[in-house]
């Protein structure tokens, strides 16, 4: 019983980090994805550089860098902040590619037609491109969020008492390997299924426009 309580405490930490990082990653991914698709090189190049840098170096190394190196440069953050920020910076880069893919799925003719009808560039994005891109966006974003959930286990390596850390610690104390890690795998699985379910529901909500498009 004690085991379950302790693990659920760790699961709460994992959920908190995943939720915080997911929100921040979305806030990063939207402008990066838009900037990545920009025709202006001054906007596009920095976005590409950011995306390639964060996708090219490993998340574990990025977390270590934020945790060990930044304090020596005079920037001190709580481990929890490092965890959420590190995962968000990394998944923001992956998310930007999802945003770009969704934007590119909207046929160029739609943009031209909207411009011809006199919509401003912002109006085109807001009323024409975004609603259609949304239908494509939801599924890959949901998959990415499952990846993000799994990636939160890496924060245990920078001393945060998340689900994985608790399991490791309790294992060191009790050596009851199978029940502890078995339970942890089940908890992660259930959390991932929750994200998958949310994705399906969101896809049903936004995906209905796909039929409209198919008929048009």
């Amino acid at each position, binding site marked *: 019983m004690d085991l379950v309580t302790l693990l659920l405490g760790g699961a709460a930490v994992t959920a908190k980090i995943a939720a915080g990082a997911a929100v921040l990653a979305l806030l990063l991914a939207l402008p990066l994805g838009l900037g990545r698709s920009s025709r202006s090189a001054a906007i596009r190049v920095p976005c590409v550089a950011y995306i390639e840098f964060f996708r090219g170096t*490993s998340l574990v190394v990025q977390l270590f860098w934020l945790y060990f190196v930044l304090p020596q*440069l005079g920037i001190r953050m709580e481990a929890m902040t490092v965890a959420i920020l590190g995962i968000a910076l990394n998944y923001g880069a992956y998310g930007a590619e999802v945003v770009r893919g969704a934007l590119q799925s909207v046929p160029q003719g739609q943009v031209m037609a909207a411009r011809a009808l006199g919509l401003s560039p912002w109006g085109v994005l807001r009323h024409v491109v975004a609603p259609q891109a949304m239908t494509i966006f939801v599924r890959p974003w949901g998959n990415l969020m499952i990846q993000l959930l*799994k990636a939160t286990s890496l924060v245990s390596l920078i001393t945060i008492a998340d689900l994985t850390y608790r399991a490791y610690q309790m294992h060191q104390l009790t050596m009851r390997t199978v029940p502890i890690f078995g339970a942890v795998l089940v908890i992660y699985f259930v959390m991932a299924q929750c994200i998958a379910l949310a994705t399906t529901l969101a896809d049903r909500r936004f995906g209905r426009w796909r039929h409209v498009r198919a008929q048009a």
Partner: protein
Amino acid sequence: MNPTGVWDWAFAWSILPQLLHAGVYTVIATVLSFVGALLIGLPLALGRDAAHRPLRLVTGAVVEGVRSTPILVQVYFLYFVLPQAGIVLPALAVGVLALSVHYGTYVSEAYRAGIASVTQGQRDAAAALGLSPRATFFSVVLPQAIPPVVPALGNYLIALFKETPLLSAIAIVELLQTAKIIGSETFRYNEPITLVGLILLALSLVSAALIRRVERWSYRWR
């Protein structure tokens, strides 16, 4: 040696050989794990599309279960459980095994997509020519199924490569573990961890370029 300042070039230079040597282990772990994943992926793909219903359900459960849980926990699980079952393997073998199984499930989904993309007419034609189901699969379906999924496989290779630093959690002396050791000996983390990041970035950019070449090569078979 007593490194000074935020960044000490002499210190960075002095630890570079040690890190590059560790990089060899990172590359070895990546290559072995990827080959393992390619091999494990095939039976998983076949099992998931098998006519035998229980086999299909079990394979599906395994693939979904492995894909929905963190690789780090799987690494710990294997690392601690295998010795209790009387199987004592070096840490590197355990790490490679865990990465192979984890990425094998991803690879299996890519294989399935590739196999599904081979049209029924190809199978019908092979059957009409009197090929056995086995020959049909290995000589007709599989050679056409792989090239379209080469880009996906390439992406998994790079993803796998970037997962290898987590093997430091079970004390495999790859890049990050070496950086941690240097850090704990010298009390300096700036240079070792930054260099690890740069080495990984360089290797992943190079391998991405190589994969684009393999992709172009594989398109010839379409």
